[in-house]
């Protein structure tokens, strides 16, 4: 793994990222974001100046472990409540369009 990240962001990279993030960006947005990402990445890459191999990573500021609670039945949402904010449903399930496209 390189410690000098390649911040060369191209429109194709942004298009690929948008696909991964499921956002149908317009070509205009892709062009604009390509430039902005290059500037931002240039700046944030400075973390590599001090992040040597001897420094452990911190993922949570105040780590807790084995956070369990008793498994007791509690009050849960009714089906009606759970579906209340859904864009579409059939009364008991969320309704979506086709999962697979034609080419799949």
């Amino acid at each position: 793994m390189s410690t000098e990240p390649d911040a060369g962001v191209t429109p194709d990279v942004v298009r690929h990222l948008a696909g991964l993030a499921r956002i149908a960006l317009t070509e205009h947005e892709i062009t604009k974001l390509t430039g902005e990402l290059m500037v931002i990445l240039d700046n944030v890459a400075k973390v590599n100046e001090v992040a040597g191999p001897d420094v452990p990573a911190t993922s949570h500021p105040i780590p807790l472990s084995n956070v369990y609670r008793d498994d007791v039945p509690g009050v849960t949402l009714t089906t009606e409540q759970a579906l209340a904010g859904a864009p579409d449903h059939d009364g008991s399930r969320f309704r979506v369009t086709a999962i697979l496209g034609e080419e799949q």
Partner: protein
Amino acid sequence: MSLFTRTASSLGEMLAAGEVSSVEVTQAHLDRIAAVDADVHAFLHVNAGALDAAAAVDKRRSAGEVLGPLAGVPIAIKDVLCTLGMPSTAGSRILEGWIPPYDATVVARLRSAGLVPLGKTNMDEFAMGSSTEHSAYGASHNPWDLERIPGGSGGGSAAAVAAFEAPIALGSDTGGSIRQPAAVTGSVGVKPTYGGVSRYGAIALASSLDQVGPVSRNVLDSALVHDIIGGHDPRDSTSLTDQWPSFAAAAREGAAAESLKGVRIGVVKELDSPGFQAGVHQRFHEALDLLAANGAEIVEVSAPHFEYAVAAYYLILPAEASSNLAKFDSVRFGMRVNPPGGGTVEDVMAATREAGFGDEVKRRIILGTYALSAGYYDAYYGSAQKVRTLIQRDFASAFEQADVLVSPAAPTTAFKLGEKINDPLAMYLNDVTTIPANLAGIPGMGLPAGLAPEDGLPVGIQIMAPAREDARLYKLGATLERLLEDKWGHTLLSQAPSLAPGEMFAAESGAV
């Protein structure tokens, strides 16, 4: 003196003494909102059930129920928090009109303590921003100058409090979203220790950084709110099980303190930058002089890795946000946009997220997706997490030399709306003073230090304490607040311009 100019603690006392009803207090604030919020735009939604909630508290009181110190007092709630009966949008189009099926734990605790939710306050979309200009519903305006930002992301809560639309509010702070708005509006805001306040029902931005906290016009009121919302919540796996002291007691003790003898106050050299606005620098140093004159020992401490904090933050935050915001998938809640000609569920998802997210949210999701992708993970996200360790070590060593640390709460006073909107990086640098506390999980408070001579706008000072030592913020904050107000002869917010001509304002009546 109008009811809306009173602090939450004084309203609580009047309510307890039967001098006024919660319905009257709530109505006074609803009237104030009606009078000024067209200009300030602090609220996204005003609670139609507020007077009913107030009447219910009045009934509990008249039935002889023993109620808490803020029972019957109205409060504004940042729109990032889930609320039964009120839309919760986090400032995003993708959640327009969404009414959650449950209350956030903090909201449930407010309701059971008898507080009256006035409504939901404006914010940058999903709390991404320092100005509220990234709200999908339009920016809020600073009560000190309506052409300026009220800070962000919690600019709506700070503006509501500073414009006397609510005595207290809730905010959330991921990189300064409570403390920076407090600084630029002349109000008080506290980011508690990470895990000190439940986040159940707080729409997540960056889960290793987010913390919910109080917003108010004085230190005691924030402490009273913190006492209500704090403490362990089994529904939040990051919630600490500590027994917390009374923060209100700490604030009262601080306000009464005769001297600061024996208190070591550390000035973080790296956050005392000559690049900050001159009036910010001046008022900050005057506050230090005042603390020293009252017996505090001022020591300079160094935190050499703070200069990497903003860079680390803008890797960690987008990475976590890109994951947290994956839940907005057009299936279970929120907006759905069907692309022309139909498509698969993934096409619908992509079209929905394109239409439902604003520019800044897209920018950070793409950045976070990049930082987490194979081949770049170690160089970006992994390195940022290492910087986080270095910043924690800087704090640990600084707190060996000082009981609390101080800095300006923001590098400048409120900037003009539109000034930084097209320069994401300039907007990000605005958080330089507040971000280190989030990365380390420690508590921080923003409170007024005066008005900058060059523009007459509020300057904030930040106090930071070691993790779990939130009480130190309230104690020292209350002492500093009293010393400054003794020196000025009034509260800072009493000097804010009157927004509704003809109404008696705090300045005339000497509020607080």
